[in-house]
């Protein structure tokens, strides 16, 4: 039997950038599917906090989405602003390029951003707007980077959009700048979006081991730091589903080694920090990491004790995407929580392999969405808690299932050692809330026996 050639194997994986690569799995018509490529591209780049993000299309692509992600900024807030060209029917007939040009000019004049990202939408792609040309012309005239992001909604899933955003960074941003002399160089964090401030916890850990962050791609990023990402010594891919291709391409272009890792759970965090130090090829740093991780792990073990006692043997159904599909399993296992069902809808084959490494044979894989499918698993496996994103949250409430939001709207940071402690606390709180007991007991007049002795 012929061995599977590496490039063919790669083309199967969703993160591959090779031209032959298959698109991510197509959504099935008639289902309540997730976001589109436009959404994906935007959520990847929006955490570049000091840049302006302009949506070229009818109002609602921006109107329905502005400022609804939980990616936090430590400073600038321009990325919070919803900019749109708001095309109407006559623009669609006669073209919206003039409006786009004027919009870019206005933003540059009024807000003076370091860069403007311009997103195409279904409509502008269909009517054949030459966005690249408009952006190029405006960029040259205004002397700031104006970057076209060609990821209209219809080209595919949200995840494809993440990757197209990565392509835009490779094509227009990375390698266009140089760090100040004397800037310590270290690791790029790729595919970490600083939801609820997780990036800050991670950075703190890295810094205390003496590892510098070169560029954040893109959680709480500044435009300039991404321009010199090619000077980093190591790439860590935090969400592989989204931006593995970016790391692969940077490896071949700039020779930067990469690894895929996670910060959910103590073991994964330790592994990631060790891997960074190892790839930096710095023995002293490795020793510092070892000391740090040992100290943090033993502290954590102590802090977790009361929670583990309560969480041990609890069963959870996990429905999320990308890196969290497997890494949160590790975190839960460390807390003694058993994952009895896991969503694989938004996972790469590698992710699924990693899931398989971490769960037992009797864990159910939930390949596609739909509330009923998830609920079926919860019921059949008698799960105690559901861990998923906001769109499934209210379904869980209807079914009176304790719930934790793990996706972009969450307000708690779960990364790193402190994050695991927070997760333990949240799980305990959610499970222990008195409302579940109240909800599951019938009203007194519906009980068979009278509530008091007659």
């Amino acid at each position, binding site marked *: 039997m012929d061995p599977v050639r590496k490039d063919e194997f790669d083309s199967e994986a969703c993160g591959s950038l090779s031209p032959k690569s298959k698109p991510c799995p*197509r*959504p*099935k*018509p*008639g*289902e*309540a*599917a*997730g*976001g*589109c490529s*436009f*959404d994906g591209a935007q959520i990847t780049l929006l955490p570049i906090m000091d840049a302006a993000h302009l949506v070229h299309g*009818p*109002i*609602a692509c*921006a109107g*329905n989405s*502005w*400022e*609804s992600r939980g990616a*936090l900024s*430590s400073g*600038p807030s321009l990325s919070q*602003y*919803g*900019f*749109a*060209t*708001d095309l109407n029917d006559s623009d*669609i007939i006669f073209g919206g390029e003039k409006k786009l040009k*004027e919009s870019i000019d*206005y933003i540059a004049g009024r807000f003076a951003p*370091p860069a403007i990202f311009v997103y195409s939408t*279904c*409509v502008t*792609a269909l009517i054949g707007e030459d966005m690249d040309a408009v952006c190029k012309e405006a960029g040259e005239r205004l002397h700031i980077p104006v970057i076209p992001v060609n990821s209209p*909604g*219809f*080209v595919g*899933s*949200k995840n494809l959009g993440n990757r197209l955003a990565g392509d835009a960074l490779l094509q227009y941003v990375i390698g266009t700048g140089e760090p100040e002399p004397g800037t310590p160089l270290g690791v790029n964090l790729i595919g970490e979006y600083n939801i609820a401030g997780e990036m800050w916890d991670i*950075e703190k850990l890295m810094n205390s081991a003496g590892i510098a962050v070169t560029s954040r791609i893109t959680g709480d990023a*500044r435009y300039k*730091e991404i321009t010199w990402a090619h000077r980093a010594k190591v790439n860590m891919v935090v969400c592989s589903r989204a931006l593995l291709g970016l790391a692969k391409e940077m490896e071949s272009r700039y020779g930067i080694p990469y690894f895929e890792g996670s910060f959910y759970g103590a073991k994964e965090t330790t592994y990631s920090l060790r891997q960074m130090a190892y790839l930096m090829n710095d023995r002293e740093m490795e020793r510092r990491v070892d000391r740090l991780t040992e100290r943090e792990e033993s*502290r954590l073990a*102590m*802090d977790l004790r009361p929670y583990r006692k309560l969480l041990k043997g609890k069963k959870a159904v996990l429905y999320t995407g990308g890196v969290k599909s497997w890494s949160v399993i590790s975190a839960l296992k460390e807390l003694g929580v058993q994952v009895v069902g896991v969503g694989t809808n938004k996972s790469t084959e590698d992710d699924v392999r990693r899931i398989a490494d971490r769960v037992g044979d009797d864990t159910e894989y939930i390949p596609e969405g739909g*509330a*009923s499918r998830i*609920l079926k698993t919860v019921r059949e496996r008698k799960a105690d808690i559901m861990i998923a994103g*906001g*769109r499934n949250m*209210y*379904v869980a*409430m*209807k079914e*009176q299932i304790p719930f934790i939001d793990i996706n972009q709207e969450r307000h708690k940071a779960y990364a790193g050692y*402190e994050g695991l*402690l927070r997760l333990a606390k949240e799980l305990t709180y959610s499970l222990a809330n008195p409302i579940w007991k109240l909800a599951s007991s019938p009203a007194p007049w519906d009980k068979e026996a009278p509530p008091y002795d007659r």
Partner: protein
Amino acid sequence: MSKDRLEIPDYNSLFSEDRFVQQRENKRQFEAPCSEQETAEALAYSQSAEYLEKNFNRKAVVINPHKACQPLGSIMAALGFEKTLPFVHGSQGCNSYFRSHLSRHFKEPTPAVSSSMTEDAAVFGGMSNLIDGLENSIALYKPEMVALCTTCMAEVIGDDLSSFIGNARQKGVISEDFPVAFCNTPSFVGSHITGYDSMLKGILSYLYDRSGIQAAPGSGEETGEKLNVMLGFEPYTGNFAEIRKILNAFDTKYTFLGDHSGNYDSPATGEYEYYYGGTKLDDVPLAANALATLSLQKYTLKKTQDYIGGTWKQLIAAMSTPLGITGTDKLLDTISELTGLPVPASLTEERGRVVDALMDSHPYIHGKRVALVGDPDLLIGLIGFCLETGMEPVHIVCSNGDVDFNDVKFKEEAEALLASSPYGSEAAVYIGKDLWHMRSLLLNDPVDLAIGSSHLKFAAKDANVPLIRVGFPIFDRHHMHRYPVLGYQGALNLLSLIVNTVLDELDRNHSGFNFDLVR
């Protein structure tokens, strides 16, 4: 040490810690920061009349939009009917935005599916996606009707819904008699209220046409259809309950045309169903025999009103959302006129109680300058409420206010209403403007209170004005939609929201002399 670590601060307090403050400072080197003087100058400039003018001359870009698109409204309309599955024909992301948007507002799940069109559909048309989508969604969600609307994409490539549905029937994917109502909802025209209207009209006309019933206004009185009631794009489930309470007090028969309060206010029973409540499909053709239709969002429901008046030959009583005492008086007068029934004593008594409450609070709200943002019908109601309580509307922004009803434009009506009271003399109404315009107005000509959706919170914060959340969407507060804002009870709710915000502000900003116990 370990004991301390168990105290886990949330990010609000965590990131005010020194180490994070320091980290933020370190990062500023990448931001090419302006000097403090430049920042102060820019802030001052943004408060100047010069920038206000510049901002209002802005033609191209929209900054911080305050409207959603047609299909979002059409999903809400579809969920107003029993066991109806909203179906969005287009690329999949739109649908996921709609579901998130509505769920974040109502804190309830939103069942809605998409035909997930992709590049090949863009080239060859979306027929096969639509047909596959119908087959899959009916199998998965078991609806009794599908309500189909389009997106930008389907509109730009010119997909023909009617013929696609016909082909789906021919292919046997759906049976001949399975109802599929539909409408065209391009997002580059109108806003969510246009989409609500299109879908409601689509469903009413579709169910009526296929029933074979001939409209005979007034003939249905015996079978229960005396009055039809439409609430329109209604972000408050509590408003449905309040209208129900009022109609029941009159003891009149009525049918809601579109009632999504069941879907967006369902109990947690331990078992999730896809569909809750809604207007019964069989009730729709019978509604053509009702005496009259009461429409409570006249700008929103333009096409539907025309349809009911034209095809069903029914009397239409159309008004904007009846907020405040005057608005509710008009509502009760109208119901009384349409049904021939007297206004019940219980409502007169309730009116008296709410008037009493307004009198109790008037010293604290009189003369408060207010900025308003919202949909046209809500704004007419809010302006009326402000004027009758002595509050002064100053800035009024209505992004989707480019609508008219019986040839009267929203802006004209709003201005006439404002001109009718001395408290409206300072007001200006802006249509087609966004929240960045509103920010300019708030900074340039400060007010005491801002009333609008959660999206207004950024501008309100910049201008340091307390925001009272009314309208759609409200993402960052819980349960607001459960309390009615219309009717006398609604007037009381609005009043307590507003007056207690004013009192909170008084306490918070007290100078040491006015931290009073009794107010």
